[in-house]
């Protein structure tokens, strides 16, 4: 199981919630060779979904060009302080992880 994500979410006076997510993932490109010259197989997050109150507020498809330990930030309307926002990622090996944060 992968390490937890770090998620920060805060709503501003205008009712816009800014979410910042830092994931823990190797994001191996599949282009790199190890010491023996063999290709290191690609291993990367493919799908990311963020939900608030059961509604998807962002979904993403990623390739291996996303940097190691991916960072993501986005902004959405309609949430209030104290609400939860959930983020789920799934990688190309089928591993997945969901974490949740309370909106400040």
């Amino acid at each position, binding site marked *: 199981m992968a390490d937890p994500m770090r998620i920060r979410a805060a709503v501003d006076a205008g009712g*816009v919630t800014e979410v910042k997510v830092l994931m823990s993932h190797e*994001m191996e*490109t*599949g*282009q*790199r060779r190890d010491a023996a010259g063999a*290709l290191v*197989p*690609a291993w990367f997050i*493919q*799908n990311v*979904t963020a939900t608030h109150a059961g*509604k*998807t*507020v*962002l*979904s*993403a*498809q*990623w*390739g*291996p*060009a*996303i*940097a*190691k330990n*991916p*960072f*993501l*930030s*986005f*902004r*959405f*309307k*309609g949430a209030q302080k104290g609400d939860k926002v959930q983020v789920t990622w*799934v990688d*190309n*090996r*089928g591993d*997945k992880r969901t974490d949740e944060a309370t909106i400040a």
Partner: protein
Amino acid sequence: MDSGRRDALKAGGSVSLLTLLAAAGWLKPGEAGAQGAWNKAAFEAKSIPDAYKAFGGAPAQAKEIAFVATPDIAENGAVVPIGVTSSLPKTEQIAILVEKNPNVLAASFDIPAGTEATVTTRVKMGQSSNVYALVKADGKYYVAQKEVKVTLGGCGG
């Protein structure tokens, strides 16, 4: 009969290493199905025009798309912040493409109603390159680009 086989061989000869890896199973169809949508054709595109084709059409240049938090010169190609914001009405999708990466498409974001058309992430860049922001708004595609110089490449590791 024979010609069909020959065509298949020809097609096989031109596929890249990455595609071969895909065929060898690092990206099993079953897995992909279980994980929801992943635009395989677009992520395997080797050039900007190929990526446009995979998305469905040539985009128009748009001043309404802007890069935010994106450096002109990135010291470390392994971690290049890229932010894209679109003021086009009904923006529904934002994709980030790096022209000189082995596979040009880095990420594609679906923007539901109520979410602002602004995303920021970090990508890897093998070398200095144009970065494209492809935006789908109201069913049409638009694009803007910015050159990012990389002083230390990020794909060799």
